[in-house]
């Protein structure tokens, strides 16, 4: 028995050692080991596709417009630095990013992209945060909006074709069904147009990504307030073209390290985004 116990102990120690070394591998950045860990990416410059008008994810630096900052830009930089990869930002309109990933014009789209099962058929994801909707109102919340039920009779601005649009339309039906005033809907093409709506008082409420809403309030607390938030259950991730196993691994490994070191939370805090919206990095292929 002693012999058997001894073997078990030995196996146990070995397993623990292997497990520990594995964890240790995943939790340190080893930029020097690029050729060892991700051989197919040696010598490659990763093209990160992003739209620098999507604060707080990707945007221009106020103090120097040549720089691109934001939680996604900072995460991407930290991730690829961690792997020892060279990278560059390729900046374009948001709606052109995903087709460019699929065509191979850029290597990764990293800019407030929601994971959806249908999207995952054409690209591979690594998700790292929860998506949510923030209801942005003027500071002091003059219309006393506390939840989506308060939309009846109000004017609401949202992105065309967004989850926010679906939610607002549903609420509009509910308002009418209950015999209350309908919701006046103001769909917009780009966020700046939506912000003008709110600023000029043409809309009472702006529905947009939660991260953006929080960042706006942090930036200008005298102008904006968050009326409420909805956590939709959607997740946000970086996407690559199908079949880039090494690149997906780089992103997953890198994000895992950043999360374990608390760097992701630090980046979120820097831009006024709630660190609790982070989720453990997870690869989603199909």
């Amino acid at each position, binding site marked *: 028995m002693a012999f058997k116990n001894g073997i078990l102990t030995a196996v146990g120690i070995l397993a623990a050692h292997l497990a520990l070394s594995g964890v240790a591998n995943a939790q340190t950045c080893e930029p020097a080991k690029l050729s060892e860990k991700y051989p197919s990416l040696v010598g490659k410059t990763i093209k990160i596709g992003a739209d620098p008008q999507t604060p707080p994810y990707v945007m221009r*630096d106020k103090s120097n*417009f040549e720089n691109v900052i934001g939680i996604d830009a900072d995460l991407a930089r930290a991730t690829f630095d961690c792997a020892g990869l060279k990278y560059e930002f*390729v900046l*374009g309109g948001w709606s052109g990013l995903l087709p460019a990933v699929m*065509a191979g*014009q850029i290597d990764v789209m990293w800019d407030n992209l929601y994971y959806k099962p249908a999207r995952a058929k054409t690209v591979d994801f690594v998700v790292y945060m929860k998506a949510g909707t923030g209801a942005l109102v003027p500071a002091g919340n003059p219309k006393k909006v506390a939840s989506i039920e308060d939309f009846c009779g109000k004017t609401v601005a949202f992105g065309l074709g967004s989850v926010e649009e679906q939610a607002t339309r549903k609420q509009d039906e509910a308002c009418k069904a209950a015999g209350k005033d309908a919701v006046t809907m103001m769909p917009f093409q780009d966020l700046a147009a939506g912000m*003008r709506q709110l600023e000029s008082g043409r809309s009472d409420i702006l529905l947009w990504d939660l991260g953006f809403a929080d960042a706006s309030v942090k930036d200008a607390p005298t102008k904006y307030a968050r009326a409420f938030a909805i956590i939709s259950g959607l997740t946000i991730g970086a996407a690559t073209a199908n079949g880039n196993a090494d690149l997906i691994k780089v992103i997953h490994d890198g994000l895992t390290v950043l999360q374990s070191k608390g760097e992701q939370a630090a980046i979120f805090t820097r831009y006024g985004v709630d660190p609790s919206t982070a989720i453990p990095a997870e690869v989603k292929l199909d």
Partner: protein
Amino acid sequence: MQIIRTSSRAIAVAILALAFLASTAEAQAQVSAALQELSGEADAAAAVEQHWIWEFFSYAASEFLWVGAWTAVKITALSMAIGLVLGLGLALMRLSRLFVVRAAAWFYIWIVRGTPQLLQLVFIYDALPYIGLKFDSFTTAVIGFALNQAAFSAEIIRGGILSVNKAQSTAATALGMGPVLTLRRIVLPQAMRSILPGVGNDTISMLKLTSIASIIFVNELTFRAQQIVGQNFRFFTVFAAAGLIYLILTSAISIAQSWAEARFDLERERRPRGETLRRMFGFRLNEKPGEDVPAPKPLAVSPADAHVSDDDVFRSLATSAGGIAKRGEPFVVCRNVQKSYGDRVVLNGIDMTVARGEVVVLLGPSGSGKSTFLRTINHLEPVDWGEITVDGRHVGYAPLPGGGLKPTRALAKARADARIGMVFQHFNLFNHLSALENVIEAPIRVFGIAPEAARALGLRLLGEVGLAGHADHLPHRLSGGQQQRVAIARALAISPKLMLFDEPTSALDPELVGEVLQVMRKLASAGMTMIVVTHEIRFAREVADRVVFMDEGVIVEQGPPSEVIDNPSQDRTRRFLRVVERAETAS
């Protein structure tokens, strides 16, 4: 936002703003402070923020935006250049005689004009990589905009080409100019007037439209402005600044367009280089003291000398032109020439021989086929049947081994080699060229005569026809009679062996007919071989060696004027002469 109430304050702000643009950072801070002070009732909070004017100009001068503007300019310039070249090709394809070529161009234009440009850009950028064609953003934008511009400018250029009278290219063809030369030297310069406004429009649109290329990662002006707005939401100042930059760029395009339009304006007064400046400021750049504009030397020194030289030039032209036929021998031989337009028979078997040095006048009612016959001699019109030789050679036809003829490929060269001068009813002078330039165009471009020699010959010929003082005038400044005399000089400048006149006086006012006939008389007496279609009976009687009367595509009778005009044997001839003579006495 601060509203500027009084005009004096507005002016002060404008001056400060200009000062801001032109000054250093340190000075800018002072100007900014001055602006804040100027805004008067600004409260403490506003004073801490930048004044909006300051902000506006700092964006308008921002390198970040100007880099985007430069990208837009580069894309526009390259795409426009490529697009215009392709567009010219497409326009010519659309005007082709071959259905397949026309259809291909039409199809391209249909597809490209009919689909959104945004989708075309995304297609080139994101779909072509699947078949191995991967272009970067800038290249994609240039390709996309150029292909699009090609379709639009093809239609603009086609419109321009169609706006140039067909007679212009006919005249060029008669001078032996090939299709490419005609297009480049004669048609396009005149088409420019109607092409340029459209192209100017398109250039301005394109510059602004480059913003859609943000979808394929082109960071041009609008996209960059949006990025700033996306960051700080200062819509008004940022977009106003971007608007100002666009306005500056499009103004430059407008100025370039005006300049180009003035350059191709036919009605504009032609001034020597520097003359405009001289008129504006009273001096000319690069002017050497004491240098004067040389006045054109009068050609004719004395009437007696002039007369001698007249005869000399015309005679030397009429006799020097080489050839095998001697004076009096058959020079133009037409056998059984037949031609139809569709079902209508125009020439129904013409047999005619013209001897070297002979002057033949073709008479006949309208529609009798005289002009068509004349145009078959220099192969402006192909014949359906029969053959014509000039000085023993076919013009643009080669004999087939088993008999018969086939058209040769180098038709323009054949026409040039035949050296047949032609004068048209409506003169067909090149409207964009001065009298002298009209005369020397073919000698230089077709026959390779040195420009200086050609100029000397041109001035001499213009002197012969009495227009030495009009050498630099554009055709529209000349009377009909003067234009026709330039046209005769132009036809003579290619040293013709044969001159064809197609109703040269029919479009002239009666009082101008004489001056043209005078020149023709001189030419005839110098011994030039001439075939003249005219209704001038008196001229025919005086000058013609032989009169040919045509009707309904056949020769009815021919002979010396004393027979055909004074004593016609055919009824049809008599009827025609009665009508013409009545008309002559009436006018």
